[in-house]
């Protein structure tokens, strides 16, 4: 017999429109946030064991119900057209710079990419992936950008800590050597 707190989590998440943070659930259920995390883990495991067509996930700091990724072909037939346009390669590269270097100004992004970043940054902001998060305290008070909650949701991440470490992308020995050869650094 499922206990009331577990059932209440299911009921609330069923009517929620965005990820619900554990501390809010804890407040509503009058249990500790740690207990909420336990309950949610148990539920998620139960759905998986029962081979349900939905999953309970933690994304952008909260819990929510989602369709099982296996069933994307069916769901996409249903929500046809709801897919947002994919980001271009320059937009992705810029998004990565913001994600890993935030808070960061447009000028800093442009310096890394070697091109003016205004158009791409505006696209990312329009799409809701990045937003202004602060002002540079230094002279000029440049606007500093960071990634948004929507960014986490779109990438299925619970927090920025779940981003793959940037070290994973630092070019390997072979690439570095190829570049060095290209620039004539390494002697042949």
């Amino acid at each position, binding site marked *: 017999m499922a206990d009331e707190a577990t059932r209440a989590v299911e009921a609330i*998440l069923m*009517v*929620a*429109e*965005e990820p619900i943070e554990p501390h809010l659930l804890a407040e509503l259920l009058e249990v500790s946030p740690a207990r909420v995390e336990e309950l949610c883990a148990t539920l998620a495991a139960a759905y998986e064991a029962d081979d349900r067509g*939905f999953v309970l*996930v933690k*994304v952008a700091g909260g819990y*929510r*119900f*989602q369709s*099982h*990724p296996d069933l*994307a072909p069916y*769901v996409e037939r249903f*929500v046809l057209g709801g897919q*947002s*346009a*994919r*980001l271009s*390669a*320059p937009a*992705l*590269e*810029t*998004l*990565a*710079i913001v994600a*890993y270097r935030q808070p960061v100004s447009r000028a800093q992004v*442009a310096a*890394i*990419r*070697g*091109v*003016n970043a*205004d*158009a791409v940054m*505006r696209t990312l*902001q*329009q*799409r*809701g992936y990045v937003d202004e998060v602060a002002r540079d305290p230094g002279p000029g008070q440049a606007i500093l950008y960071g990634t948004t909650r929507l960014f986490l949701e*779109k*990438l*299925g*991440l619970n927090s920025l800590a779940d981003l*793959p470490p*940037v070290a*994973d*992308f*630092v*070019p390997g020995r072979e*690439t570095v050597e*190829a*570049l*060095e050869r*290209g*620039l*004539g*650094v390494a002697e042949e």
Partner: protein
Amino acid sequence: MPYEVSTPVYEGPFDLLLHLITREEVDLWEVPLAAIVDAYLAEIERMGVLDLEVATEFLVVAATLVELKCRRLLPGPDDVELDEELALFEARDLLLARLLECKTFRDAGSALARLAAAAGASHPRTAGLEAPFLEITPDLLAGVGPLDLRAAYLRATAPRPAPRVELDHVAPVRISVAEVVEELASVLPSAGRMSFRRLTAGLPTRLDVIVCFLAVLELYKQGRVELDQAVTFGELDVRWTGAPTGAGDLAAVDTYDG
């Protein structure tokens, strides 16, 4: 080795250079100098007059490459100054560091795309409240301001396939050459002679330096300064000769204000 420079649209000098080195898998030293220069010139031409900052980046990268290549063609390291050699190594290392940084974020961007694709297979429930609960819901627009609404509108209308004129290339130049000419005309007479490097030491962006350079050329054209450069790429000396001109001439200076 036959080499063709194809020119798709590059996202800046690092993109082009990465392409030349990695995707084409060529040793830049085996590519004729002219081909490298052509590729860069083609890029700059494609950009037209719109983005001076990018054009300058391209030029800096191209110049570094050409210099590296020239140096390599020279007989040996003995006959070049050690300082110059070190400066060249430094430029090359800087270029390498920036290329590596650029490549890092490009690969990180691809990883983000993979994450987004994986996450996109699982759709969230957003059905919201059932009718009976809707009636007891407090103000849904609490905390929503006009700017939130505007942001939502822009989000909703963002992925537009229709072609639009992008205004973003037209970075407005905040300083005009005329202003800098005026400024120099007030600073230089007391200084007498000053190197261009010192003249531009405090300037925040490359664009300011360029505008200052144009201003110096303008003063030269008006016969108010003498320019002297002992060696190629050496210090540029600016000397005030002070041939007087009326204020009317200053007004005639072209403005480069975007």
